[in-house]
């Protein structure tokens, strides 16, 4: 079952990329794309085990649909925040590197969490070590682990935990 899911998800992913690159109107392209997606997912069989960690159930799909909006909202707020700091003549920054904890287990979940943290208000992932993330924070409000985790990680973790486990 796990193998089947891996196989199916990687095929869908490669084929989706091919369709995005070539367009859907031409049947010749679709046939070639299907063949090449099969070849690619068998050639990179060892790296498709990332896809075995993705959960497929209705709640995960719903959350996967919601997540881009949560992320977009955070991205826009991040940029307004950065813009405010850059334009202000006094350069109001209070930076530092803090440590946060995450509950996520899967690798792809951690990747997406780290990417989301990097693209959201005033935070940049510097180093990971197991379940600890070291985060450069442009405006440190509290150096405490629990408090920082609550402020930085929690809003994404809620969704990613359901999608990736």
């Amino acid at each position, binding site marked *: 079952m796990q193998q089947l899911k891996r196989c199916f998800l990687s095929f869908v992913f490669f084929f989706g*990329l091919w*369709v*995005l*690159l*070539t*367009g859907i109107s031409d049947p010749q392209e679709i046939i070639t794309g299907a063949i090449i997606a099969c070849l690619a997912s068998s050639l990179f069989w060892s790296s498709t085990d990332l896809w075995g960690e993705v959960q497929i159930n209705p709640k995960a799909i719903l959350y996967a649909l919601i997540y881009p909006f949560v992320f977009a909202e955070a*991205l*826009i707020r*991040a*940029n307004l925040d*950065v*813009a405010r*700091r*850059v*334009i202000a003549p006094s*350069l109001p*920054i*209070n*930076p*530092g*590197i*803090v*440590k946060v904890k995450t509950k996520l287990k899967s690798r792809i979940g951690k*990747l997406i969490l*780290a*990417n989301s943290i*990097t*693209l*959201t208000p*005033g*935070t*940049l*992932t*510097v*180093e990971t*070590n197991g379940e600890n993330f*070291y985060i*450069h924070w*442009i405006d*440190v409000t509290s*150096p405490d682990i629990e408090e920082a985790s609550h402020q930085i990680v929690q809003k994404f973790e809620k969704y990613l935990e359901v999608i990736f486990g």
Partner: protein
Amino acid sequence: MAVTGAIITLIGSLFLFLGSLGLVRMPDLYNRMQTGTKATTLGSILFLSGLAISQSEFINIDKTIVLILFIVFTNPISSHALARASHFIGIPLTEKTTVDRLAEDEGKE
């Protein structure tokens, strides 16, 4: 429609400009990386999608989506790798820095 897209493009280019401005103004590498990553990511997303909206007959929307997704995925990864490397080789943080847990934890080992 064309004007709406052009305004979105304009906002995107302003964000690109702010990213570069932050790159010049910020006091140390990590803060520069913050502005350089975030502002340019949103800026290029807005720039590309604004172009796609305003000139929709001359543009390939599928490839715009691929380009945006690629930028959103790779930009944080590369800046994370660079930040990690610079912390490892000991590029100093600015004097305003309040706390550095990573250096503390590395000192313990």
